[in-house]
């Protein structure tokens, strides 16, 4: 049974908006040209592929269903069923359920902490216990572990390569058909890096991602690839779940602030006078409250509200989801002022443009001018802001969760992972894998987003635009 949480709904809306904008841009040359420039930059295209990978996981984690625990005869049909899980959860069920007792290193077969183990002859010794799940198929872990890992990883890599080859063939076939060239000639073109779009880079990036993913998947069947955390949960599972949280914070925040920022920004610039004064006063006031403190105050208030209205939240998932949505809202409140100011400035300039003057002289109403002549001409600023803000918001989530004013502590997020891992560094020997996993996943996402955003900005900023 499909369940749509608040943030799910907003993500669906966002996907629809993105598709809509894509279709709109495809029919308008002035929007299409910059995108062509973006995909022709090798670095931007590679980033796009990486972002696509993250997006796939994030979307899989967005489709939530209520699982049916074996329905008892005569049970009330309206009572809530089992827990709410996402498609990703269902797909990763083995990872989710194979919990150990406590810490274990990546790919380990034995625990990380010594325990008292009762031997068969009744004596008790202190040693590292065998893990319940990690490498349980091995008869003699000391001897077989490395060989087993190597074989499985190799098989995974092979599967990844096969899958990649299929994708490459598909792309080649499509390209060859479009260009009206034989398959081999197209392949030679791409391998040589010819043509405007750097397909070679894109396919190479995809190849690396696919082989890595398949190798990890092959190992994850029987090991904890990134180890387990304090309560024995698989770190790989946590870090994959963190992707959705990061994406939601990065995108939904901008989505919720866009309407207000756009409307107020162009109204302030267009009407001037007291409207301008009022809107400027509004955003200066909001802007002068330090962002972190405003967020802290708002989250504290939310906590009070939630603890006083416990009955309103039926499940942990819904509760965490509402808090996430609220965090997006409050982050939006603290971050819309920049965009609003930019739009106001641009509209001030556009108001004097000949075509706006002409429209006004012809008797077109104010709001028609705003919608038809001003808005389409400031959209590039909106787009640049949206992509530039994304990486900053993902990083902000980690910091806020570290200060305990971020997402719900029960929610999987990179910030929460770092937060719970900070004490583990002081252990001897060190528990480094949670931190390392969060670091790598976050770094890859933010780096790709930054590179992509730079390319989008370069393509859309008229001051930097060349030869379009």
């Amino acid at each position, binding site marked *: 049974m499909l369940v749509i949480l608040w943030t799910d709904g907003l993500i669906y809306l966002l996907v629809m908006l993105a598709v809509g904008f894509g279709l709109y841009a495809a029919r308008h040359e002035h929007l299409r040209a910059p995108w062509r420039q973006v995909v022709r930059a090798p670095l931007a295209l590679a980033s796009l592929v990486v972002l696509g990978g993250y997006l796939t996981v994030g979307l899989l984690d967005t489709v939530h269903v209520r699982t049916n625990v074996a329905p008892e005869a005569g049970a009330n049909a309206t009572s809530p069923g089992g827990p709410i899980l996402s498609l990703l959860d269902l797909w990763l069920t083995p990872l989710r359920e194979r919990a150990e007792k406590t810490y274990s290193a990546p790919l380990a077969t034995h625990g990380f902490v010594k325990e008292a183990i009762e031997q068969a002859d009744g004596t008790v010794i202190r040693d590292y216990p065998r893990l319940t799940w990690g490498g349980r198929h091995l008869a003699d872990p000391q001897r077989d572990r490395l060989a087993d890992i190597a074989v499985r990883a190799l098989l995974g890599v092979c599967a990844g390569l096969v899958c990649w080859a299929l994708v490459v063939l598909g792309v080649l076939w499509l390209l060859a058909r479009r260009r009206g060239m034989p398959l081999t000639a197209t392949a030679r073109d791409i391998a040589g890096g010819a043509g405007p779009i750097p397909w070679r880079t894109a396919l190479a990036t995809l190849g690396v991602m696919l082989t890595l993913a398949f190798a990890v998947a092959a190992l994850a069947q029987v090991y904890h690839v990134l180890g387990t955390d304090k309560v024995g949960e698989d770190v790989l599972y946590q870090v994959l779940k963190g992707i959705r949280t990061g994406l939601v914070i990065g995108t939904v925040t901008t989505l919720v602030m866009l309407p207000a920022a756009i409307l107020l920004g162009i109204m302030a610039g267009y009407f001037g006078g007291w409207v301008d004064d009022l809107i400027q*006063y509004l955003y*200066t*006031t*909001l*802007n*002068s*409250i*330090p962002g*972190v*403190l*405003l967020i*802290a*105050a*708002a989250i*504290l*208030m939310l*906590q*009070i*509200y939630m*603890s*006083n209205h*416990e009955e309103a939240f039926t499940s942990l998932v819904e509760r965490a989801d509402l808090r996430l949505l609220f965090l997006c809202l409050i982050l939006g409140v603290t971050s819309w002022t920049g965009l609003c100011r930019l739009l106001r400035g641009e509209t001030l300039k556009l108001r004097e443009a000949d075509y706006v003057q002409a429209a006004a002289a012809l008797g077109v109403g104010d709001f028609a001018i705003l919608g038809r002549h001003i808005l389409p001409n400031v959209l590039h600023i909106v787009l640049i802001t949206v992509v530039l803000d994304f*990486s900053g918001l993902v*990083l902000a989530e*980690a*910091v806020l969760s*570290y*200060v*305990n*004013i971020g997402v719900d502590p029960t929610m999987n997020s990179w910030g929460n992972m*770092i937060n719970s891992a*900070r004490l583990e*560094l002081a252990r001897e020997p060190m528990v480094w894998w949670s*931190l390392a996993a969060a*670091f790598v996943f*976050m*770094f890859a996402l*933010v*780096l790709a987003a*930054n*590179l992509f955003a*730079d390319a989008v900005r370069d393509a859309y900023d008229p001051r930097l635009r060349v030869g379009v």
Partner: protein
Amino acid sequence: MSAYIVRRLLYAVPILVGVNLITFVLFFVVNSPDDMARMQLGVKRVTPEAIRGWKAEHGYDLPLLYNAGAPGLGQVTQTIFFQKSVKLFAFDFGTSDSGRDIGYDISQRMWPSLAIAVPVLAVGLAVNISYALLIVLFRATYVDVGSVVLLVAMMSVSGLFYIIGGQYVLSKLFHLVPISGYDTGLQAWKFLVLPVVVGVIGGIGSGTRWYRTLFLEETTKDYVRTARAKGLGERLVLFRHVLGNALIPILTGVVVVLPLLFMGSLITESFFGIPGLGSYTIDAIDSQDFAIVRAMVFLGSVLYILGLLLTDISYTLVDPRVRLS
């Protein structure tokens, strides 16, 4: 000039009033003091007497806006709005929920914050500007491309990891400086080295990139072409003309953050155990001490507005075009 400053000062008043109203609504209207008391005392099984006691103890037992029961002027002053919000304008922060004088705590704790924030700003500025000039000197070479890639990569690392990495490398691996803590007087220097180094390194990515863009934009201007055309060497053009003119946006960018240095950094201070205003705020958030959070929100806004004011004034000082119009 003075008329200009007075006008700017007057303009700040309605903004502060707005901030004050927002905090009032956020802290007292969204959730009533009763809710707050229930939260502090534990939600389960709390008696009305206990709530009343907590409110009386912390001065929340007054009406929100209008006290009909009080005589004369007391109808306005004997309210939560006046006692808790209006008094902030006189920098009377009152006592925290744990009974300490907030004003005194702030005056004590701002010095450790400054001891970290000022060196981070100064050293960071020097490092970023020098690096950016170096990149611009070698623009469109491998130095430029490699540096930009490095800067974007550095920007993509969360600040938390700089702190964790710094603590690990400098303190745990090489035992150069203590991991965290603080000391009074000059003994504090060895506790300050690590936060300052981490702060500077963490800021290089975005800072240097920003200055690089600034300088590059400046080098396309006409006066630079003139300077080159009259035969000046590239180094002279860069260090005398470009740097000189780029100093205006740099200066105003620095002035706006100066007052906020008092507030310290939440993350740095809590990681390194520095008893500054940043960790003060974090502790308040953790223990849900609303009085402190409220005071810090107001203080932060005042400092921000002060920064804007200083920026305007510095503009009139360094840019003749602003002064004359």
